[in-house]
């Protein structure tokens, strides 16, 4: 084990309070050690990381506190105090776990740092990005990344950060471009994460930059010019300074009597009236929890197996990021799915289908159980050119369950 690790081991914090029986070393020594290491750290806090830590924890005040605690520790230890003993600090390693293989690290270690480390080779242009964005992102984030409904806004909002209603977007608020590449690549599209290629991600990020008026429409973003793009709010952040600005002010002996001249109510929550009426909901959720299939069974008309419907409700989570079904279902990234069995393929009003799906519908094809099974197992293999960016249902049993669920809630 490295020396520097040992330096940190007796760091400030909860461990001091868990000493209980004071096995191995005396509480007094332990607290003393902690104070020493703290003082070293405060002096050493040259790096930003250490600065932030020192600030956020108000390390100096902690020293005082620990000094007092050192004297108390014996008492606490004697009383037992319900405190537990820390796990032993191993002199040697336990040798558990196995070596991580390079392929495994490559698969999981995909984060991108502010200085561009972690970016894969690749590139993408604004117009390719627009196409991808309209297909895979716009249903939730708006065609121009301007947001829709309650979903996050990704563009605009410049100069609003000190307004009454600031609009925080990639353009107006985010400090680093790396964050958008990293986040979109790993976490979007919502419900189908991890499916974008590197080139696609570059293209989408380029389109978002364009939507924010930060680049021209002929820009091609790549790993090579990535660091040339600076976001406007890069300097808009300061490190946690509560220790200086707030703690010093609020560490006082508080007032106990005659603390103010009079008191008036200045605002009532009931006036805003945004608290959910929860009694019914709460009961419903508890009953559902206890009885399981009740809700699903109620919706089922005819003889569909309630257990199958319930399984389908769970499996439909794979679809729900793009599709709605049931009362008031509307088109999202994908069309609504009410009355799916027997419905003409590609026929929902107002949805922009791919050519292959529209053509199938114009030829009079309808969705049968067999057709759905084939399509859902391998969307792109069955209907080459489909816009449904979904890799297919992995577990064949899920398909019958999903269809049963769609039929149970989505009968028109």
């Amino acid at each position, binding site marked *: 084990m490295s020396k*520097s*690790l040992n330096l*940190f081991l007796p*760091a400030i*914090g*909860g*461990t001091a309070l868990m000493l209980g029986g004071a096995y191995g070393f005396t509480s007094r020594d332990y607290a003393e050690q902690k104070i020493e290491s703290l003082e070293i750290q405060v002096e050493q806090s040259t790096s930003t*990381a250490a600065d*932030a*830590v020192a600030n*956020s*924890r108000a390390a100096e005040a902690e020293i005082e506190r620990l000094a007092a605690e050192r004297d108390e520790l014996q008492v606490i230890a004697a009383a037992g*105090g319900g405190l537990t003993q820390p*796990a*032993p600090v191993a002199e040697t390693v*336990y040798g*558990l776990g*196995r070596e991580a293989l390079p392929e495994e690290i490559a698969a*999981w*270690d995909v*984060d*991108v*740092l*502010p200085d561009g480390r972690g970016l894969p080779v690749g590139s993408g242009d604004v117009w390719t990005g627009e196409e991808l964005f309209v297909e895979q992102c716009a249903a939730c984030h708006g065609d121009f990344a301007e947001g829709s*409904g*309650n979903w*996050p806004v990704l563009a605009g909002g410049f100069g609003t*950060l*000190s307004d*009454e209603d600031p609009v925080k977007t*990639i353009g107006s*608020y*985010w*400090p680093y471009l790396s964050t*958008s590449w990293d*986040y979109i690549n790993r*976490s979007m599209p919502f419900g189908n*994460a991890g499916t974008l290629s590197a080139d696609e991600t570059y293209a989408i990020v380029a389109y978002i930059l364009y939507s924010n008026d930060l680049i021209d429409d002929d820009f091609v973003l790549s790993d090579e010019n990535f660091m040339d793009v600076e976001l406007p709010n890069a300097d*808009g*952040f*300061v490190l*946690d300074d*509560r220790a200086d600005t707030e703690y010093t002010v609020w*560490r006082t002996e*508080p007032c106990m*009597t005659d603390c*103010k001249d*009079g*008191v008036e*109510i*200045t605002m009532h*929550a009931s006036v805003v009236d945004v608290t*959910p009426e929860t*009694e019914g*909901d*709460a*009961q419903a*959720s508890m009953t559902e929890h*206890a009885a399981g299939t009740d809700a699903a069974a109620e919706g089922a008309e005819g003889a569909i197996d309630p257990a199958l419907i319930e399984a389908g409700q769970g499996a439909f989570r794979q679809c*729900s990021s793009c599709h709605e079904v049931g009362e008031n279902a509307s088109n999202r990234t994908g069309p609504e799915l009410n009355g799916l069995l027997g419905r003409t393929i590609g026929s929902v009003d107002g949805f922009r289908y791919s050519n292959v799906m529209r053509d199938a519908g114009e030829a009079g094809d309808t969705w049968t159980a067999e057709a759905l099974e084939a399509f859902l197992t391998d969307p792109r293999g069955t209907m080459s050119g489909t816009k449904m960016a979904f890799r297919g249902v992995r577990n064949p049993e899920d398909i019958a369950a999903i269809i049963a669920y769609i039929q149970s809630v989505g009968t028109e």
Partner: protein
Amino acid sequence: MDEFAKTSRRAFLRGSAAVAAGTVAGQAAAQGAPDPAITELQDWASYLGVGVDETPYGLPIKFETDVVRRNVAWLTASPISSINFTPIHALEGTITPQGCAFERHHSGAIELSKDDYRLMINGLVDRPLVFTYADLERLPRENHVYFCECAANTGMEWAGAQLNGAQFTHGMIHNMEYTGVPLRTLLAEAGLDAAGDLTDKWVYVEGADASSNGRSIPMEKALDDVLVAFKANGEALRMEHGYPVRLVVPGWEGNMWIKWLRRIEITDAAVESREETSKYTDLHEDGVARKWTWVMDAKSVITSPSPQMPITHGPGPLVVSGLAWSGHGKITRVDVSIDGGVTWETARLGKQGDAKALTRFYYDMDWDGSEMLMQARAMDDTGYVQPTKDQLREMRGENSVYHNNCIQTWFVNEEGVAENVEVS
């Protein structure tokens, strides 16, 4: 339904008539005719109850169906990336039962089995490693009680009193006893010599769900009290809290407590992930934002009486019950005011505070039936005193979303009905 209406405390909120009826019923039994609940043979005293083979894993009895998590639909676009609230108004003591402890997911709660679980440690380490769940169970473990509070708890109250209920204003918090392996033990297995000087190193932690929520933790904290936990309150973590393994980052904001923990990477810089730039940064009035505001400052709230817990018994003995906590250490004192902060009295702590854990406080009073403006004010062992909302706004403005630890005010009227208000 009937049963529910009868037992729901919220039913009393429907109006003073209900409150009055409740009071009268109580008195009639005490004064006049013999109480049939005593004089008549009751079914439960005669017929048989439920056998031991009925309930292999029990839920609360049906009379408690209102003690559940609730969400606020208008807060987010989708319940899959959203939050719900612990019913703190109806709980006592300090430990939060897992089944009603708040949930916050960024891409929904996932089912990840112990068999499928892998934990990778890579980056600036001597030996990049992969652990299975079984490996984790072979390392020395510790037990600790800690609170986990979302940085956005009370975040809807910045611009004014908004939500009517302690559950909604303060329910993004839970407090459990965790069993886990200290993170420093795992880091020692991978070896930190390769990292060189540790003072400027970071530990980036990431979840296995579709959001792959990731946060950067400074090495000093990682080597201090962070736990890689697999049990809470004696049983396996619930799915919604990160089964089978989550990170526990005592005293620091809940978003850092990575659920479904799958990767730990030692780096020489913060990753500046979405959750530490776009989110979980505190925008101030001047348009500049604070970042790396990890510690949750001292805070308290009266859980009863409160809007969901009106006083239903009329004047006389009243138990005022509440919670206090601090991410810096122990709660040393809580003061209570019933006149909106003009005068304060020191409350009784249910038990001496544990560091970075919820502390219960009580204020036992004789209510004369007049209106009250109830407040609680916490102090921790660094001497920090919980600020008023105006003090916070003066420092930060109204748009910082996160880290609102203001003193909360409940207005209690003569009928015992409580409401969330702001006072001068």
